[in-house]
């Protein structure tokens, strides 16, 4: 979004990150190696950080050097945007002066953001918060219910780069499937999500167990942080779901973190979401749909609104989820 605003020519943006590195799947990931950092730099957006390491406690007070660095950036800014609520703790310090703040909100469970909700409410009551942009109607409703004044809440529904996320041609789709170890004529369900309680991975795996047992031409794919058997939690979940049918695991593909998500989604006939809470406007559904996959989602956040007319909403039950995947797959009977 920032690259788009900056490239538009009427606004000039700079980015300040609190951490210079984070931990993902037991690996330290440097900011400069992150594809989003690289996209910002390619667009000409200066990016700096306060220099915090991956093991720096999130609630550590900001020190004098960090505040001075923030103050230098803030001094020449007309508007401060914060990605979610967490940076509001920094923005509320004297270092940031009195520039108006726009918070960008991306979840529908404000109570699960630590002290973020308290910081947001404080920013609203102090008059510092000029607007809060919600990526979903569910986000707006949840934050309004949590006490954020409704006149501050604006919905800007999520969108994706339609050039990156588009259906692949038959040849490219076949090549991508072969590279993933999937037959060209298989029916393929993809979940693109990190391993997280809100994603209800056990439900996803239970549905995969039903789907793969019922359709011997089906394959199920998952990619995202923690979505590999190197994650002991996922390995346990898989063992529980497929303990009686280990033969089905040949058609379950757990790819872990992928930086070529459009290529993974391009092999999908169905893009799945089995989340139980916390979602706002899940990008994976939109990205998958724009790649030509039928979105099949549980009713969480704005999922039902997103898939209306283009996909299916299913109950949070393995049989119901698997039935939805079958309906969205090629070769279903009428």
């Amino acid at each position, binding site marked *: 979004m920032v690259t788009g605003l900056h490239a538009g020519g*009427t606004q000039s943006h700079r980015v300040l990150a609190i951490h210079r590195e984070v931990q993902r799947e037991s690996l330290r990931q440097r900011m400069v190696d992150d594809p989003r950092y690289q996209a910002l730099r390619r667009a000409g957006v200066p990016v700096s950080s306060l220099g915090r390491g991956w093991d720096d406690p999130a609630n550590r007070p900001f020190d004098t050097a960090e505040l001075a660095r923030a103050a230098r950036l803030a001094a020449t800014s007309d508007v401060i945007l914060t990605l979610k609520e967490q940076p509001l703790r920094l923005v509320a310090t004297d270092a940031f002066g009195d520039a108006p703040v726009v918070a960008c909100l991306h979840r529908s469970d404000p109570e699960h953001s630590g002290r973020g909700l308290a910081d947001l409410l404080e920013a609203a009551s102090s008059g510092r918060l000029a607007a809060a942009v919600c990526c979903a109607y569910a986000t707006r409703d949840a934050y309004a219910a949590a006490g954020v004044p409704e006149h501050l809440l604006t919905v800007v529904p999520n969108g994706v780069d*339609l050039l990156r996320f588009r259906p692949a041609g038959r040849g490219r789709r076949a090549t991508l499937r072969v590279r993933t170890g999937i037959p060209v004529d298989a029916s393929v369900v993809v979940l693109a999500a990190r391993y997280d309680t809100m994603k209800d991975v056990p439900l996803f795996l239970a549905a995969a167990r039903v789907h793969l047992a019922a359709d011997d031409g089906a394959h199920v794919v998952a990619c995202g942080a923690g979505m590999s058997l190197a994650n002991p939690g996922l390995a346990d979940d898989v063992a529980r779901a497929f303990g009686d049918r280990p033969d089905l695991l040949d058609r379950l593909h757990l790819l872990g973190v992928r930086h070529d998500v459009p290529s993974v989604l391009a092999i999908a006939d169905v893009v799945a979401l089995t989340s139980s809470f916390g979602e706002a406007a899940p990008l994976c559904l939109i990205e998958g*749909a724009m790649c030509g996959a*039928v979105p099949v989602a549980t009713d969480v956040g704005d999922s039902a609104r997103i898939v209306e007319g283009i996909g299916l909403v299913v109950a949070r039950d393995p049989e119901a989820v698997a039935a939805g*995947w079958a309906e969205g797959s*090629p*070769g279903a009977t009428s």
Partner: protein
Amino acid sequence: MGRGVARRDELTPALQRSRSRFSRTRMVASYAGVVERVAWAGAPAAVAGSTRSA
């Protein structure tokens, strides 16, 4: 294969028609509008007025 009710054929044309609804360009334009509105509201009135008219 073939245990579900055929829905894919009816959904695929709708998917193709829905692309503009999910455009990042639309999202960026809306965001830009919010930022501009906040920037103008936060500026001193005289400056905002003179710049707007430029």
